[in-house]
C-alpha cells in the first residue's frame, strides 16, 4: 500500500499537525519509502506467534507496583501553573473552544 499525499494529509490531521504544502511534498515520498521498508515484515509468517506486549522483563512483570491509596503532597496550583503559556485565576487559559 504505497503512501500518498492524501494519506499524509489525513494522518497530519489526526495528529493535530497543520503541515504546509512544501512539507507535504517532502514528507509523502519519505514516508512512502519508510513504510515500504517496514513492509518487509510481511514476508515473515507470524500466524502462531504471541505478540510481545511492552518491554518488561519477567522480573519486571512480577514486580508488584500497587501502592496504598493514601493522600500525599502534590505540586500545588502555583507550581503547576508556573510554566503555562497563559494562566489566569488559578486555571490554564485557552482560546475559545467553539
Amino acid at each position: 500500500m504505497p503512501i500518498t499525499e492524501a494519506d499524509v494529509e489525513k494522518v497530519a490531521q489526526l495528529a493535530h499537525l497543520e503541515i504546509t504544502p512544501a512539507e507535504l511534498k517532502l514528507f509523502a515520498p519519505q514516508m512512502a519509502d519508510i513504510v515500504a521498508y517496514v513492509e518487509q515484515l510481511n514476508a515473515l509468517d507470524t500466524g502462531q506467534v504471541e505478540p510481545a506486549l511492552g518491554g518488561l522483563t519477567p522480573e519486571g512483570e512480577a514486580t508488584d507496583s500497587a501502592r496504598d491509596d493514601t493522600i500525599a503532597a502534590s505540586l500545588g496550583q502555583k507550581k503547576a501553573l508556573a510554566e503555562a503559556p497563559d494562566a489566569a485565576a488559578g486555571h490554564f487559559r485557552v482560546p475559545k473552544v467553539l
Partner: protein
Amino acid sequence: MSAKKNDIEGLRGRISSGETTARAVVEASHDAAENLNASLNAFLEIDKGAPNRAEAVDKEGALAGIPIAIKDNICVEGMQTSCGSIILGNYHPPYNATVIERLLTAGAVVMGKTNCDEFAMGSSNENSAFGPVRNPWDTTRVPGGSSGGSAAAVAAGIVPVALGSDTGGSVRLPASFCGVFGLKPTYGRNSRYGLVAFGSSLDQVGIFARTTRDVAEVLSVIAGRDSHDATTADVAVPNYKSELSRDIKGARLGLPRSLFGEGLDPEVRASVEAAVNIYRDLGAETVEVELPNAQYSIAVYYIIATAEAASNLARFDGVRYGFRAEEAPALRQMYRKTREEGFGPEVKRRIMLGTYVLSAGYYDAYYAKAQQVRALIRKDFRKAFESCDAIITPTSPTPAFALGEKVDNPLAMYLNDIYTVTANLAGIPGLSVPCGLSSNRLPIGFQLLGPNWSEPTLFKLAQAYETARPFTERPPIFAE
C-alpha cells in the same frame, strides 16, 4: 592532566587528600564547558551556580564533588528541559527525575544540560532545534545521536560522566562515535520518572564515561526500584564495582556472524575482530550464535517507536507548559499551529508515521505484526544466551560520518542503528566499548550484549578488555 586523575576515583582522591576541592573541580568543569562550547555546541545550559553547590555536597557520598552533565530530556529542578525542541524551549520542570535525586544524594553536582536530537529522535544529533553537536575528534563530523552532547562532553574531558537516554541506541552509538563507554541498562533497571517519554517500552536512562569503572560506579548509584515508575523491577542492585576485576577465563562470547556481513565498514570489522582476538588471548571462548530475526529489527523498531512516540507526544499542545503559537483564535487551531511551529521535521515525520501505523484498518498490519516479530527477536536472544554469556557486535556499521551527509535521507539515517536497536526491542543491556581509531583518527567501538540483568558480566568483560588494551587516545578538542 592524565585521564586517570580525571576519573571518579582520581577526582575523589584528590578532593579528600586536600590537593583540590569539590568547588575547584566543578569550576574547572564549568570553565571547560564555557570554553569548548563554541566549538562543540554540546551544552544547551551551563549552570553558573554549580561551583557554589559543590561546596555543600555530602563529602562521604560515592560521587561527592563529581561534576556530571545531563541530557536535556531528563528533568533537573532549577534548570531547563528543552528536549532539543522549540515546543518545550525554556521549560523549567518543577521536580527532579529520580535518577537525578539519587545522583544528588550521592554528592554529584549537575553542571549543565546537554544538547540532543529533538525528543531523542535521531542518530546524528542534527535534529536539535538548537543546532548540531560537533564531534570533538573532528568538528566537521557528527557525534552520533541522540545523546550527542553528553557523549561529546565526556569525550572532550569536560565531565568524567554524563547521563543520556537510549531508545534505539542513543547512548551506545554516540559513545562509539566519540570514543567513550556507553551503557544501556536492562529495561526496568533505572527509573524513567522525570525522563521525557519517547518510546515507553524501549526507553532507558544510560551512562557515558571514559572508563568501565566509572560507568559501574554511576549505575550503582542510580539503579533500582522506584515507586514513581511502575516499570522499574524489584531486582537487587549489586555492587557493580566489585565485579570488575574478575577473571574472564572460560567466559563464552557469542559471535553473530550474520551481523559481520554486508554494509560493515572494513576498518570497523577489522577493529572488532581484533577485539575478539584479544578476548581469546584473555582466555574467553568464542561460539557462533544465530540471530535469524535481527535483520528485521529496524523495521520493527520504526513501527513500535513511532507508534509510542505519536502517543507520548500528544501531550505537547501549548496548554500547560512550553511554547504556544500566536494568532490562533480557536482551540483546535491553536493545537495545530503550536505543534506545527513547535516540532521539527523528524519529530513530525515520526508522529505521522506512528499515527499512520496505529490508524484504523492498519493496526494489525503494522503494529500487531511488529510486536509479533519483536517476540521472535526476544526468543532469538534467549536461545543465543543458552550457549554464551554475552554477544559481541560492532556498535555502528561505520565511524562518525560528516555533518549533513545523511540529513536528506531519513531511511539511510535509521540504518545506523542496525546493531543497537535489537537490545531495546529485547529489553537486554548493551555496553559500547572504545576499541581503536580508524585511519583518519575516528573512534570505533564494539558492543557487548548480555541477558537481562547481566550488567556485571558486561562490566567484567569490558574491564578485562580495557585493562589489556587501554584506550588512551584523546581527541584534538580536550579540556586541559
